[in-house]
C-alpha cells in the first residue's frame, strides 16, 4: 500500500486559551468532547480539546468577538498536511510513537523528524491530518516526501 502526501490550507485555525470554554464547546455541539480528542465539524473543520482551558478550532466562525474576560484567541498559521494510504508505515520512520495506542478521534501531539507535530487520528482508511509550526513546514514536507520517495521499507509494503 502506497502513501501520498498533500499540503492543506490552514486558514481559520484558531487557538483558544482561557477559563470557561464550555460555552464554546456547546456552540460547536461538542460539550462531551474528551481531552485530547477531536471532532469533525464539517469538511476540513474540526474542534479539538487540548486541555481544560485550551481548544484548537478550525472553523469559519470567528470567535474573537464572542470571547469572555480572560479568554484569548490566537490565529494559527500552522503548516498542515494530509497523508493517505500507509501513513503508519511512513510515520514509523520519523516518529517513535506507538500508533497501536491511538484510536480514531484522538488528537495527538508527537515529535516527528525532530519537529513537534499535532495530528488528527482518522477513521480506518481515511487520510491523516497533521500540522506543525509554519516555520518548519517546508522541512517537514521535504522530509516526508523524501521518505515516501526513497524509503526501501515503504517500497516493500
Amino acid at each position: 500500500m502506497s502513501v501520498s502526501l498533500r499540503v492543506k490550507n490552514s486558514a481559520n485555525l484558531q487557538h483558544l486559551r482561557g477559563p470557561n470554554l464550555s460555552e464554546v464547546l456547546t456552540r460547536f455541539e461538542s460539550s462531551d468532547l474528551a481531552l485530547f480528542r477531536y471532532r469533525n465539524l464539517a469538511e476540513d473543520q474540526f474542534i479539538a480539546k487540548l486541555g481544560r482551558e485550551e481548544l484548537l478550532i478550525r472553523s469559519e466562525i470567528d470567535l474573537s468577538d464572542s470571547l469572555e474576560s480572560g479568554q484569548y484567541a490566537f490565529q494559527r498559521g500552522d503548516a498542515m498536511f494530509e497523508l493517505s494510504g500507509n501513513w503508519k508505515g511512513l510515520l514509523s520512520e520519523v516518529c517513535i510513537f506507538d500508533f497501536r495506542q491511538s484510536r480514531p478521534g484522538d488528537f495527538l501531539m508527537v515529535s516527528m523528524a525532530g519537529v513537534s507535530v499535532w495530528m488528527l487520528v482518522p477513521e480506518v482508511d481515511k487520510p491523516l491530518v497533521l500540522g506543525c509550526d509554519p516555520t518548519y513546514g517546508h522541512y517537514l514536507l521535504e522530509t516526508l516526501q523524501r521518505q515516501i520517495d526513497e524509503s526501501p521499507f515503504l517500497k516493500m509494503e
Partner: protein
Amino acid sequence: MKLRLPPQPYEWLDRKQIIEFEFEGEVYEGFKGDVISGALWANGVKTLGRSFKYHRRRGLLSFANHDINALFQSKDYPNIRGDVTQIEDYMNVRAVNTFGSLKHDKGTLVEWIGKFLPVGFYYKAFYSPKFLFPKWESLIRTMAGLGKVDTAWGEERKPKRYLHCDVAVIGAGPSGMAAALKAAEQGVDVCLIDENAFIGGSLDYQYANEPEQVSNRKRLKQGIASHPNIQVVSSAYVAGYYGDHWLAINTPQGLIKLSAQSVVVATGVFEQPAVFRNNDLPGVMNASAAQRLISRYAVKPCNTAVVLTANAEGYRAALDMQQSGIEVKAILDTGERLCRWVQEAESSGIIIYKNVEMVEAIGKQALEGIVFKANGEQKTLECDGLLMSVGWAPAGAPIYQAGGRFSYDSTLEQLLPSLLPDGVFACGRLNGVFDIEHRIQDGEQAGLNAALYAKREPLVDCLDFRAAQAHSHPFPIWEHEKGKNFVDFDEDLQLKDLKGAIAQGFDNIELMKRFSTIGMGPSQGKHSNMNGIRILAKARGQSIDATGSTTARPMFHPTPVSHLAGMRFRPERLTPIHTFHQQAQAKFMEAGAWLRPEYYRTGLPRKMCIEAEVKAVRNSAGLIDVSTLGKLEVFGQDAAELMDRLYTMRMSNMKIGASRYALMVDDAGVVIDDGVAIRYSEEHFYVSTTTTSSDSAYRMIQKKLIEWKLSATVLNRTGQLAAMNLAGPNSRKVLAKLTDLDLSNEGFPYLAMRQAKLSGYPVTLIRVGFVGELGYEIHTDASNGLAIWKTIMKAGEEFSIRPFGVEAQRLLRLEKGHIIVGQDTDGLTNPFEADMGWAVHLQKPYFLGKPSLSKLKVMQSRTLVGFELLSNQAEHVPLESNLVIEDGEMAGRITSIGFSPALDKHIGLAMVDVALKAIGSTLHMRLSNGRMVQAKVVETPFYDPQGLLQKPQETLQEEVA
C-alpha cells in the same frame, strides 16, 4: 552445475531464473535464490576463500552466516558473506585476503614459516629496535585485514523504523513459530524475527525428510501466515538487545528499533565443529551446514560422505545424505547411543563405527579421506565430505545482552539459561530441549507466558522439556602431534596456540581471548568460543562454569554504519519572508535551526555588501527580518507577577502601551536571555527572546509557572508571528506612507508600543533601536509578514531602502555597544560583568536569580569593556575569542570585533579582568598566529553615545506609553 540436486521440497530457489555471476574472473551459473557459496559449491568450486593467517584453502563450515573464510569482495562492498548473500546478475566478486588470486595465493608462504609465528608473536616481536617499527607496521597492515574498503566511498544512509509489539519472538524455528502462534492466540501483537528469508528454521532442513513433521510444519506456518496479530520480519537479525526490551533489528532495508513488552528468545544453537588435524580442509563441514545446503539450495555437499557424530542429529544427517543420493561411507560415533535414527541408519546399511577417536582429515587442496581409530584400530576411509555433528552452543546473545546468565549443564554438556530477566523467555534448543515435539511445546509455553507477561497477568508454571542425554561432546578435541587442528577458523588459531597462551599465564578466559584473539574475528567466536572454554577448563582442571565465558555484546553480526546512522533529520526553520530573501540573493547562514540572511549579494565582495547595508541604515533606511526572535504571549491574572519574577527589571509597573528591555538570568545569576517586553493590557504581556533561546526560555517559564503556582499562561508564538525591524533616519517617513498612525515623537515616542494597521494589515509596532537609529519593530501574523515586508520595501524605494542581514546588524549594534547574549556573554557571565547593572532591580522582592545577583554585585572580577584597535592593518586584526594577555597571563578574551565604517576603525568588546577596565588602558591581544597587537579601552557606545539618533528631536527621556 555439477553438484546440483533435483528440486527439494523446501528449497529457496526459483529455478526458472538462471543467474550468471563472476567469481575470480570466471563466469558461473546459479538459480535465483542461490547464495554465493552455495552456487559456487553447486558448480564444484570448493575452495571459497583463504584463511586469515596461513592462507590455507577453506570451504564451507557452518553455512549459517558465520562462514568467515568465505567472504567476498565486490566493487562496492568488502567482506560479503557468501553463505547468506544471494547471487545477482552481473555480480562480480573475488575472494578477500589473497595475494595474487584464490588459486595461486602468495600468502601461503606464511604457513611455511608458521612455526616461527606462535600465538602472540606480534606482541613480542616488533617493539625493538624501535626504528624498524614503521616497516613492521606497514607489513602488518598489508598482511592483516580482510576486504578492501574503497576510501572514495560516498555517503549512504538507510532509514530507521520504529516498530512496537507486545511480544517479540527472536527466531522462527519450530520453537519460535510455536511461541509466536501461542502468544498471538492470547490476543497480543507479536513480531516474529528471523535472519533467514523464510521461516521454518531447522524444521525445514533437519526434519525435511521426516514425514511426521509435515503436519507440524503446515500447522505452524499456515497459522502464522493467517494470524492477523503476527508480523513476520524475515531476513533480519537482532543486532542488539537494550533496556526496556528494545531490540535493534537489522534488515537489508535498514535498522528497525523494536519495542516489546516481553521477548521470547528462540534463537537456537550454533553447531560446533570438532577439533582435529586438518579439520579445515574444504569438504569438512558441520552436519547442519550440509543439511542446509541440500534442503535450501539443493546442492550436494559431497559425493561420498563420512559423518563424525556425538549425538543423534549426526545419524539424521547421514540419513539425509543418503536420501539425497550421496554415498555415506560410514558414521563415526564418538560413543554409543540409542534412538530411532540410529536404528534407521543401521537398517539402511550405513556402516557405524562406535567409540571413535583420533580423527584426522587428509587431502591437499580438499578433503580426500579420513583416518581414525575405532576400538583401538586405525582405519582410513576415502571421502570428499566429512560432516561434523559433535555438539551445540547456545545462540544466547540476546539473553546475555538483556542481563541474563548461562551455566553449564553437565547432563546436556551445554550452556543453558540459568537466569532470565523479567519479561525474557527462552525456549527450544537454546533452552536444552532437543526432541522436536518438545521444542514445539516448549515454544508454546514460552509464548503463552510472554503474552501473559505483556498483559500483566500471572504466569503459568512450565514443564521441563530439557533433554535427558547429552547432545554435545564434552571435549570434541583430538590433539595431533603435527598440529593443524583449528579451533578458531576466523583467526587461524590452533589447539597449540591456545595451549601456548595458557602456558604463558593467560589462563583466564578473558585474558586468553585477548592474548590469542580467539573469538575476536568477524564471527565473534560463534563456532570457536565453546571449544576454547573447554580447552581452558581442561587445562586448568576446572569446570566450565568456573572457567566462565566471554560476553556477547552487540552487534550480533557486523552491522553497516549506514544502517546505524539512519537518515539525517536536521530540522530547519524558514521565516515567513524567506522567499523574498531568496529572490534578493541573500547569502544564508544558520542561526540555530533558522536560516537567516547573512547579507544580500550585489556582485561586490562580501565586506562591501555588508558595509553598503550598514551605510543604508545609518544614512537612510534599512529593513531586517527578525522573525527568528522568540515571541511569547504572557497573559492571565498573575501575568504581571510572573513577568516580575522572570526578568531582572520590574515589569509590573510598566504602562499599557509601553515597552521595556527584558533581561533574564538563571538561578545562579547567569545571563541566559534578553529581549523586549511590551504590555498590551493589565493581564497581557508580549515578550521577545533571542533567536536561539525561544524554546528553552519557554520551557523554563512553563516549569517556573508550575513551581510558583501562578495563574498565568505562556504561549510560544515564535513561529506564528513575523517580525521585522525598520531602521534608519528615514524610517519614519517610510512608515508614514503606510499607516494612519500618529508617528510623531509625541504620538509614538521612543520605547512605546502601538497596535495599528499597516497597509491594512494589523501589526504591533515597537519603537526600539537595537541598531542605534530611529527604528520600529513590526510584529504581525506570519501570514501577513511577506506582504508587509514587500509593502515597506516598495514604500522605501524613494529613500533607497535596503534589506540588511545579520552581519550588518551585528556591526550596527556593536557600534552602539549592545551585547548579544551568548556571544558577549558566556555560561558564567552575570549582568554586572556585562556592564548591565542598570538592568538589575535588586529592590524587587524577588526575581529569578536575585539571591545570587545580590552576592555577585560585590564580587565582580571581570567586566565587558569596549576597545578600539591601535592598528587598522588587516593582518593585525584579532578574531573573536582571541585572548587578552597581561604579564604573560590570560586576562580576558575578545567577544565581538568588527570594522566600523562610521568610525573608520576596528572596534570591539572584550571580557577582561576588572583591573584592565579603566578608559585608556592598553589591552594586549594575541592573534591566532601568536603575534601580539594592542588595543585601547574606550567608552561605549562607540557611536552616537547620547542616543540622539534613535530618538531624534525627542525631549522626553523617560519611558512612556
